[in-house]
């Protein structure tokens, strides 16, 4: 018997286990009830591990989510930075365009204002070489440009044409060491020779040491060189050093101050007077006018009077009209106007001659016929 059990032990255990589970299923199916205990054991064993897993998953996914968000933020930052750079470039370009348009407008205004015959040109290239002070313009002999013609901008002279080709011309800038032009100072009319130095500033040479030149003073072309017509701005004095026999004067060229894009080539120069005062195109701030005082309202409305003197003249004229007095006529002893009389308030018709005017108002008849006394005159004793 024992041998038999040993021989079929495994299959016996198998059958018992299977049988036990079949009974379990049968009980559940028959009673339609669950075996709660076994489920509790399993769930109790599984849920702590599931909770640990879920916590780990939360932490891991949170980390990766944050990492991805950070990655996205970095990507956004990079994209926005690129956009900012692009917008900056665009802004710079638009500013440049506006500046170019402003300069073109100034050029047109200057061309209309100057008596010299000019032709507009654009700088299309600069001369080769680091120290090159030469530019090329898009106007040449085909447009009437000739060698030696001056080149200017509204701000000042720029240079002169040193070679004219059919479609372009070569211009030596005033900063070129070989450039020279006759100049004269605005304030003291000191003449000198402008020379380029190959640097930003130019030199005014041959100004005697006893001549008076001030820093900030402006120089204009003198016309002596037979190239630049007289009266074109050249630049502003920045440095004055006493030296012998000539002063050392450094000038900041005003024509190159705002860059060089569009210029005017003077085809036929006309000499102009050198202005006495600093150029009128310098911007001057003008504030708004103060509000009118109540008494001035009528005077301001009645005519285009601007200054106080104008207002006074207008007031006297109205008084004269009200009193039938014509200024500048009549000889000595003739009727004179009462300049202290008050004018009627605005909107009210001035009283006609002979009518009783309101208190204090001018009554023209009063001048001819004195008003009766309000109290009887004292009678002499009889």
């Amino acid at each position, binding site marked *: 018997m024992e041998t038999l059990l040993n021989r079929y*032990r*495994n299959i016996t*255990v*198998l059958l018992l*286990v*299977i049988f036990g*589970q*079949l009974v*379990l*299923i049968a009980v*559940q*199916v028959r009673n339609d009830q*669950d*075996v709660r205990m*076994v*489920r509790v*054991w*399993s*769930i109790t*064993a*599984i849920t702590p*591990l*599931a909770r640990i*897993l*879920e916590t780990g*998953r939360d932490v891991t996914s949170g980390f990766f989510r944050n990492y991805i968000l950070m990655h996205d933020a970095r990507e956004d930052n990079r994209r926005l930075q690129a956009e900012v750079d692009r917008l900056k470039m665009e802004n710079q370009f638009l500013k440049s365009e506006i500046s170019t348009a402003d300069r073109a407008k100034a050029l047109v205004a200057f061309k209309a204002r100057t008596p010299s015959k000019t032709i507009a040109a654009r700088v299309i290239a600069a001369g080769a070489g680091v120290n090159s002070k030469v530019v090329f313009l898009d106007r040449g002999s085909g447009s009437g440009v000739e060698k030696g013609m001056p080149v200017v901008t509204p701000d000042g002279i720029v240079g002169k044409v040193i070679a004219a080709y059919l479609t372009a011309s070569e211009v030596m800038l005033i900063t070129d060491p070989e450039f020279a032009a006759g100049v004269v100072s605005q304030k003291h009319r000191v003449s000198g020779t402008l020379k380029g130095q190959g640097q930003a500033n130019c030199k005014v040479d041959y100004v005697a040491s006893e001549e008076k030149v001030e820093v900030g003073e402006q120089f204009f072309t003198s016309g002596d060189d037979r190239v630049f017509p007289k009266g074109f701005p050249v630049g502003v004095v920045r440095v004055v050093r006493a030296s012998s026999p000539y002063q050392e004067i450094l000038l900041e060229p005003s024509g190159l101050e705002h860059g060089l894009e569009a210029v005017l080539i003077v085809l036929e120069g006309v000499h102009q007077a050198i202005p006495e005062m600093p150029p009128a195109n310098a911007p001057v701030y003008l504030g708004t006018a103060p509000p009118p005082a109540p008494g001035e309202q009528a005077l301001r409305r009645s005519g285009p009077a601007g200054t106080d003197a104008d207002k006074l003249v207008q007031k006297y004229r109205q008084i004269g009209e009200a009193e039938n007095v014509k200024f500048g006529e009549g000889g000595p002893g003739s009727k004179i106007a009462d300049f202290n009389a008050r004018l009627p308030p605005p909107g009210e018709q001035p009283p006609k001659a002979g009518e009783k005017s309101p208190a204090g108002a001018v009554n023209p008849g009063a001048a001819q016929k004195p008003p009766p006394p309000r109290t009887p005159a004292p009678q002499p004793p009889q």
Partner: protein
Amino acid sequence: MTESGDRFLVGNQREQISRFRARVLLFVPLAAILFQVYVPRFFAFLGYLELPLLVTIYFALMRRSQIGGLFIGACIGLAQDSLSIKQPLGMFGIVKTLVGYFAASVGMRIDVEHSVIRLLLAFFFYFFHEFLYWVLQRGLLGKPVGFGVQRTLVLGLLNAVVGVTLFHFLDRLRERA
């Protein structure tokens, strides 16, 4: 099969019996069940993996003990049942008990260290498991469920491939002599 044939296939059986620590026998099935109930929440396609079955097959094959195999199968199956609320306890229990028993029986007779043998066994026992489960559902519970042979074959192949990899990993948890 003759005795010489058994020796040819198994070699020295005593040397080939694998032993595992108790915590391995406890936590690996637990992890497999946990994987099946937890991971498909996030990766639905991983729901096709029957890791508890693969773990049952592995332990039954490697321990070469029919009683041990059937008890491992019964415990894992009952645990699976208990986590399936709509299913009476014992369905997976019976199926996995039989799988464990037969896998141990096979493991006693052939060399199960080879990957191809493992692949074939995993494929076979998956199919056997699914078929038996279908039979029990129809026979014991009277559920009119169908059996997709093609689908079962494909999933069997998938599980077999995963099983070979898993078995290779679980080999590292064996106690060394």
